[in-house]
């Protein structure tokens, strides 16, 4: 079996939540694997991250370099190539940084690449992995030839990590192998998302709409229901892409993280990037005209219906009940 590495991101010395999940993925490839953490950064911030990784990794490779204070994928790729031996398997979290780093890194490492992996197992020919296609409507098994190494990006949350006792690992300084670093892309600044007119993180009930709402003119029926319920309207990515609602209304990994009590998912297919923004185990009621929509796999209650008819009727019924109770 090749040597297995896990690239670990960190910020302000706090390591990514997914670090422990990469260890689980590594042991699925090789049960006897002791994956090595690869950590890039600069100064005390990096030392702090490496120190916390000693609890979960037997070996932590620290790459300290002035140019790596901000994680620029091109610079990190160059730094990793200076220390990772040919033929290695490198695991990376499939997030905005993994998408930036991993494909090009696999080319330079001359290894195979597979992204957004949900499960994996060893095979005589290499690895067999499970991943989703078509926004989660179907999944596929893929076989990967890892004979010349591989870069594998892992979906956050797919590999549940148990709480293990600390291993008290060692930190190995690898910075000396990295020479001067320069990139054709330079980080300037991070612009924080605008808060928007309605704070969807503050509502107990969210009426959330997806592509199934079909048209900007139909957003009003969701708003009417929300008004009647004392709820807010949130949405999935396609609604923002189509400019039907502001970005501040989007639930998901590239939008807001919300913790409602009830989530009314209307015409939302249920892609994982969307579900990643739903925390606190809300009660999910899904309405979708496609009985095979992935949202029905994670919802508590599902209704196959035309939401353009269902929502107005639901609104009317709630209004009737208010009128009755007011009398």
């Amino acid at each position, binding site marked *: 079996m090749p040597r297995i590495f896990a690239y670990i991101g960190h910020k302000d010395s706090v390591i990514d939540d997914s670090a422990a999940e990469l260890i689980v993925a590594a042991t699925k490839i090789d049960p006897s694997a002791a994956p090595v953490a690869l950590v890039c950064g600069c100064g005390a911030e990096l030392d702090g991250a490496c120190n916390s990784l000693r609890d979960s990794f037997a070996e932590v490779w620290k790459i300290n370099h002035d140019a790596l204070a901000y994680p620029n994928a091109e610079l990190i790729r160059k730094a990793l190539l200076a220390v990772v031996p040919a033929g290695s398997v490198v695991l990376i979290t499939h997030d905005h940084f993994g998408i930036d780093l991993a494909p090009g890194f696999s080319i330079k490492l001359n290894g195979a690449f597979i992204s957004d992996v949900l499960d994996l197992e060893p095979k005589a020919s290499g690895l067999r992995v499970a991943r989703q296609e078509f926004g989660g409507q179907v999944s596929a098994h893929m076989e990967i030839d890892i004979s010349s190494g591989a870069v594998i990006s892992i979906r956050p949350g797919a590999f549940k990590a148990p709480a293990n006792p600390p291993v008290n690992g060692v930190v190995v300084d690898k910075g000396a192998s990295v020479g001067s670093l320069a990139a054709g892309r330079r980080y300037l600044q991070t612009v924080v998302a605008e808060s928007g007119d309605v704070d969807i993180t503050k509502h107990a009930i969210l009426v959330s709409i997806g592509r199934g709402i079909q048209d900007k003119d139909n957003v009003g029926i969701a708003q009417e229901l929300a008004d009647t319920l004392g709820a807010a309207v949130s949405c999935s990515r396609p609604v923002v892409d189509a400019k039907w609602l502001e970005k501040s209304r989007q639930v998901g990994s590239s939008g807001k993280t919300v913790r409602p009590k*009830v989530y009314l998912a209307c015409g939302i297919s249920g892609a994982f990037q969307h579900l990643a923004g739903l925390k606190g185990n809300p009660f999910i009621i899904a309405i979708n005209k496609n009985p095979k929509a992935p949202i029905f796999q994670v919802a508590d209650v599902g209704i196959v219906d035309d939401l353009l008819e269902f929502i107005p009727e639901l609104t009317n019924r709630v209004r009737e009940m208010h009128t009755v109770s007011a009398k």
Partner: protein
Amino acid sequence: MEILVCARRVPDTSENEITLNSAGTDIERDELVYSINEPDNYAVEEALQIVARVGGSVTVVTVGGEDDEEILRREMAMGATHGILLSDTAFEGSDARGIATILKGIVRKSHYDLILTGVQAEAGGAQVGGMLAAMLDYPFASLVNSIEVLEVKKLKVSREIEGGNREINEIDLPCVLSIQTGINEPRYVGMRGIRAVASVAIPNYGAGDLGVDTSRVGAKAAKVKRVDYFVPTLGKGAEMLDGSREENIEKVIELMAAKGGLK
């Protein structure tokens, strides 16, 4: 600015339910409606908007067969200057690395300042753009949601990162960018526009034309192969309400009251 957009024809998930064939070896492809991969369409629109500001041309390229010409024509109807089909039996069964290798051939054959791809296609790989950039030794940025042309050899791009935040970078040309949906509002393409480009000849380049080593592309070179498709079971699955609409509405109200404090 000379811009190349790499595009792909895919089953349109807004028009189709994707199901398995009876053998579980593939998705059911009979009667599927195909269209251009949605992020690729945003990439073409972005290219058109850049060229409208600073001049230049937009070339749309795809790797595939005759059927795939329709998306090239669609994007030409949108305003793209050229369409190019990269087609060769040796290309069949290529994995993402193979596709990037073929695309490298067209980049080397001509001169482009900027290469755009959609962030991902139907398989969600999000990989060809990053691979192509590494093969060319060009800088790369993924998940790009705005582009500003700074000067002749430089762009300012914004990337979509967590929580709706944006990471702003300066990037040297030539470079490869993978474009996120929502970056712009792609223009509508009418039948008239499609008809206007219906008879435009689309050049077709094979491995020989592109200088592509056929041992590095196609099914034999692929390090990644699909074994089968299956339907995932995540979680326990929803309790499906199968009453009349009125009954379902009553139940939903009851649940919202019990679980969400609806009064």
